[in-house]
């Protein structure tokens, strides 16, 4: 065991079905976000920026785009001679194929991967959230508290506590109680699904849990309650800053819109905590004589001839003359022909919006998800 060494295991197998068509072809961590990223870029960049260079990515659902996005990890400086980023899909052994049953089971199936890297600590991450976080500070906290488990938590509005796993803590941040989606919460500290475990201890629990026939193989439902029951020291690490679970099309749209406020908490322009992503090698964007662009994010390879306001545009988007785009997220490769009016939409990759189309209206707050074949209204 290498002293003080921490590796990350990133759970990236979830489908995220409430994102509808956005996750029809890709797993949720591969969903595009913020003009040039995919959601998984955030935890991966956090790892690289936190000096964690060994990351196992547990995939299961439609991993192809994710694999192709991550490649050998060079975008995040995780292409290492040894260690580095490694995709860990399910596999077969003599007993046949074994899909991952739950979050903890996925780690159990890859014990030999972790053993080879031989860490003292394991950081469990999910690939579903947008945030910037220095995991090394969480580790410092974990070590200072001599904790067995540390769970990262964030304050959520009191009226939303019923949507989260809530942790009650004492003044030392020792966790006194868990409540899963409580109706009347005693605290507004929600678990972010980020855990640090001492590997030796976690390893023993994973093996023990696997022997229980009734186990769901889940951290939240099985492993952590069991450790707590056994009197292991569990602490809550309070994170402050922007953190968003983009669970639905509407919250996805909102999180993109958040980036347009000039002093948004995520601050993607901070050169000390860059968010890395796979590079596309495209030329700069061109804004034509007749165009107008305001309060928007625009990316490489775009050609803007129309009017864009309050919008987030990915790569290689062509907005033609006399079209208006407002409060809209447009993924890569979209063309919007002449004379269109688009409000409050999320337009998926490579869609062509025919000339004269109108989607949404400035007076409504319904968000429209536009794919090649259909338009869905948000919940």
């Amino acid at each position, binding site marked *: 065991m290498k002293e003080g060494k921490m590796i990350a295991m990133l759970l990236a197998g979830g489908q995220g079905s409430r994102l509808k068509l956005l996750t029809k072809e890709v797993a949720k961590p591969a969903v595009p976000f*913020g*003009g*040039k990223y995919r959601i998984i870029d955030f935890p991966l960049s956090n790892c690289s920026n936190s000096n964690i260079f060994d990351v196992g990515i547990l995939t299961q659902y439609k991993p192809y785009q994710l694999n192709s996005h991550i490649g050998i990890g*060079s*975008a995040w400086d995780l292409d290492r001679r040894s260690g580095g980023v490694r995709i860990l899909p399910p596999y077969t052994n003599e007993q046949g194929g074994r899909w991952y049953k739950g979050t903890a089971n996925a780690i159990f199936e890859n014990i030999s991967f972790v053993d080879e890297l031989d860490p003292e600590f394991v950081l469990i991450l999910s690939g579903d959230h947008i945030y910037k976080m220095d995991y090394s500070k969480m580790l410092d906290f974990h070590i200072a508290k001599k904790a067995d488990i540390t769970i990262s938590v964030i304050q959520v509005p009191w009226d939303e506590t019923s949507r989260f796993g809530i942790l009650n803590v004492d003044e030392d941040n020792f966790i006194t109680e868990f409540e899963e989606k409580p109706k009347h919460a005693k605290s507004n500290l929600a678990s972010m699904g980020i855990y640090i475990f001492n590997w030796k201890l976690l390893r023993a629990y994973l093996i023990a849990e696997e022997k229980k026939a009734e186990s769901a193989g889940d951290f939240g439902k099985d492993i952590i309650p069991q450790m707590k029951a056994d009197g292991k020291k569990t602490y809550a690490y309070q994170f402050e800053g922007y953190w968003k679970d983009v669970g639905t099309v509407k919250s996805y749209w909102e999180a993109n819109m958040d*980036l*347009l406020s*000039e002093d948004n908490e995520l601050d*993607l*322009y901070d050169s000390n905590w*860059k*968010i*890395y*992503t796979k*590079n596309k*090698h*495209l*030329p*700069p*964007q*061109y*804004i*034509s*004589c007749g*165009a*107008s*662009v*305001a*309060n*928007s*994010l*625009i*990316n*490489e390879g775009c*050609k803007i001839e129309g009017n*864009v306001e309050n919008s*987030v*545009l990915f790569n290689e988007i062509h907005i033609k003359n006399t079209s208006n785009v407002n409060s809209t997220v447009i993924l890569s490769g979209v063309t919007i022909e002449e004379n269109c009016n688009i409000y409050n939409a999320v337009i998926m990759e490579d869609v062509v919006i025919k000339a004269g189309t109108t989607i949404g209206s400035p007076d409504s707050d319904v968000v429209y998800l536009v794919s090649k074949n259909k338009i869905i209204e948000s919940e």
Partner: protein
Amino acid sequence: MKNCLGMINLSENDGAFGVLCQNRPTSMLPFAGRYRVIDFMLSNMVNSGINNIGVFTGNKVRSVMDHLGSGQPWDLDRKINGLFLFTPTYDYTSINAKVGDLDLFFQNKSFVKNAKQEHLFFAKSYMLANIDLSQAYEDYIASGADIAIVYKKVSDVKNRFIGCDKINFSEAGEFVSIGHNLGMEEDFNLSLEMYFMKKTVYFDLLFDSVEKGNANYLKQAILNNLGKYKVHTIEYKGYVSCINSIRNYFDANMAILNPEISNELFFEHGHIFTKVKDEPSTHYMKNAKVKNSFIANGCQIDGYVENSIIFRGVKIEKGCIVRNSIIMQKTHIDENVHLNYTILDKRTTINQGVTLIGDPSLPYIGGKKAVISKEGNL
């Protein structure tokens, strides 16, 4: 083209660029919002299937090494073949002055000798184009020639391409000589200084010239031996711009505001690769007004920008007017600045209220990391 070795010689004359080339060769001049001049020739080679490339640097090695590194953006960081940099060697014992490219090639002859490729392609970086070299290569191979020279018919160019090489043909259309363009003719055949050559011919030329001492430059050696070899010429019909003066550099940048030219330069025969900077989206803020401009990622723009090329990570605050200008990477332009016909090098800072106005024939130039404020240059 895996049987062809690429040779890029960067020892170009950069005297005409003043402060822009104080610490960088011509090949490292920033271009078109996110590139360096050399990115085009390197990408041309890689896109055409050349995967073993020697780059012969001039004296300004540091800038070249920083940008090219191990060749990763061009997928040239390989175990077999890849990108090799050759820096000048200093030899205080030789009485011969080290002028021209032949000496550098001679010093590093083992690179070519040990390479498995049987043909060579020589290029400079300052003839900037997106060219399908594999087609030219096939033409050269099919011709059975020992040497092939790529040229372009240019017309209506009086007083342009001054100092470039011109290719002269006999009336029968046969290649006769390479001359020096003084700008006297309206139309002429511009040499792109790209040569294909058999490896055996290369070594003949190299050793012959070193022994005879009658050539400092490869093209001189070719001319000295015209009778001995079959020389083929290949016409290139696409767009090319020649970066050999501040005026031409400025015009070449402005030319990409023409969508036809930018389409050809960036997409025609494959993408142009460059070093990745991981910049976020460009943020057009509430007061932004942008017209006919080429803007890279990572910028934050709250002012008025017209007919300009804005590089990665530039910040333009509100109240600014930026017209007909080239603003390089990480420059910060504070509120109420007015710029016209200006080139600002990397990491320049223009403080509040400054006005800088140049002329299209010679733009105002702010050197790298310069800080300009109304009270004078801090």
